[in-house]
């Protein structure tokens, strides 16, 4: 299966298990910046880990410190393998823009409509620098 997304932030190609978030997330207060685990007790995927996965994010909510948490995950080597967003979110993507400015290896961020997320969940997928997602 090949889906055509758009590149939001260039980065490393990734092949990893896809994890579709089933509810919107606030990275600050919602993801542990040291471990990559979902820390929001009200989130349906509480305690699951986003590190090293192709994370599909239907929507972001909450704090404006999301970028700081994402930068810290990249800095600590606990970032997702790639990020796939329904809509570009400056608050989150800034984490990758700044990580690149600081000379860190950054994951790829792609835009893809959230209607595809459920069928990708749990599968081994590859995120490509031309925006393609293959499973």
């Amino acid at each position, binding site marked *: 299966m090949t889906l055509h997304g758009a590149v*939001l*932030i260039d980065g490393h190609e990734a092949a990893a298990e896809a994890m579709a978030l089933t509810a*919107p997330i*606030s990275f*600050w*207060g*919602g993801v542990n*910046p*040291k471990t990559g685990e979902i*820390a*929001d*007790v*009200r989130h349906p995927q509480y305690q699951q880990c986003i590190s090293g996965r192709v994370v599909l994010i239907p*929507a*972001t*909510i*909450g*704090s*404006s*410190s*999301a*970028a*700081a*948490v994402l*930068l*810290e995950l*990249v*800095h*600590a080597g606990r970032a997702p393998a790639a990020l796939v967003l329904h809509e*570009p979110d*400056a*608050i*989150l*993507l*800034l*984490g990758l*823009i*700044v*990580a690149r*400015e*600081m000379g860190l290896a950054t994951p790829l961020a792609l835009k893809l409509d959230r209607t595809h997320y459920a069928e990708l969940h749990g599968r081994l997928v590859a995120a490509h620098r031309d925006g393609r997602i293959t499973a």
Partner: protein
Amino acid sequence: MAMRIVAETARVMGADRLLAIESAHIDGALYHGDSGTLFAEKLVEGGARVSVRATLNVGAIDLTGCSRTRLPEHEHAMASRMMAAYRQLGCEPTWTCAPYQAGHRPRLGSQVAWGESNAVAFCNSVLGARTNRYGDFLDIACAIAGRAPDYGLHRTENRAATVVFDVSSLDEAFLNADVAWPVLGTLYGRVIGNAVGVLTGLRIRPREDILKAFGAAAASSGSVALFHVAGATPEAPDEATALHGRPPIERIRVTREMVADAQRRLSTAEAADRIDAVAIGSPHLSVEEFDALRTLLRGRSLAVPLYACTGRHVLRLLERDGHRADLERSGVIIVADTCVVVTPILPEKPGAVLMTNSGKFAHYAPSNTGYSVLYASLAECVESAVTGTPQIGLQS
């Protein structure tokens, strides 16, 4: 580097130009890990300075010494270096999430770049200045560049409400109570997401602290950056004006059941038979909110600590009027420059229960502090702190 960050964000968000800004509010000086400190120091090393007025949101350390942070040595040092770096960049050491009550009030229609979700909501909605949700790094980059990407809420056409949030079927006594507004904000944020809405059906004109509590809760449960309140906020003299003359996409009639459900979901420890602490002040308490606290407390001693989070702009006045000493004698712990959900101040205590009147604290306390929460009115919070057990169901 600052200009590159602003320009790259503009590209990602599809803005084809930058616009000049008049001020900034910087959320980036709160320590989340070493990377943020290294970023700020990289800006300092490059000789960067802010080119517009820039107030600072909370840091991870109470520099006034009112309260103590339990950060380990390394984290404490890095958090302190981070706060110093932002000072060196020329930011004002306001250290508050309520800069709009500390003398930073951009005028109606002005273009600004503000960070911190509640400050963004207040700035857009109550002051009518124009900002997107500026997160860490972009806020300081814009303040240095004096420019922001021209998209989203900087543009008039995107400030129109598309959803009506009608509270006319709720009873007046409920709407007049302080406990209502964080609940309504939480519900609003959950159903509205990132859309712009207009709240209608109010027969009262809400006080500023009420709008502050509503916006903070809405910006926690949703990604609300701008809300209108018909008859109360500057871009909404009435519902039709807030809608820019167009019919709404959706009209949500808020029922008592929806409110009761939202209120229930704010608590994660409903069956608690004791509490370990009370926390108020998210957003930071105003002088008027401290007046209300003192009135309810009546000089009594507390059985469990009540953490009252505020900015140094309010602390100065409390000290001037002798209230700080009185409050501390009762057992109130004043927390300035920071707050109890952004840095470890609450004692580590497995299974502990925190009571709060803040929708935002209720939202973030379980993940950030490990405490489960009980949401209540200010009056209930004070009585519960006095007795050490949940006193719910008081008239507020």
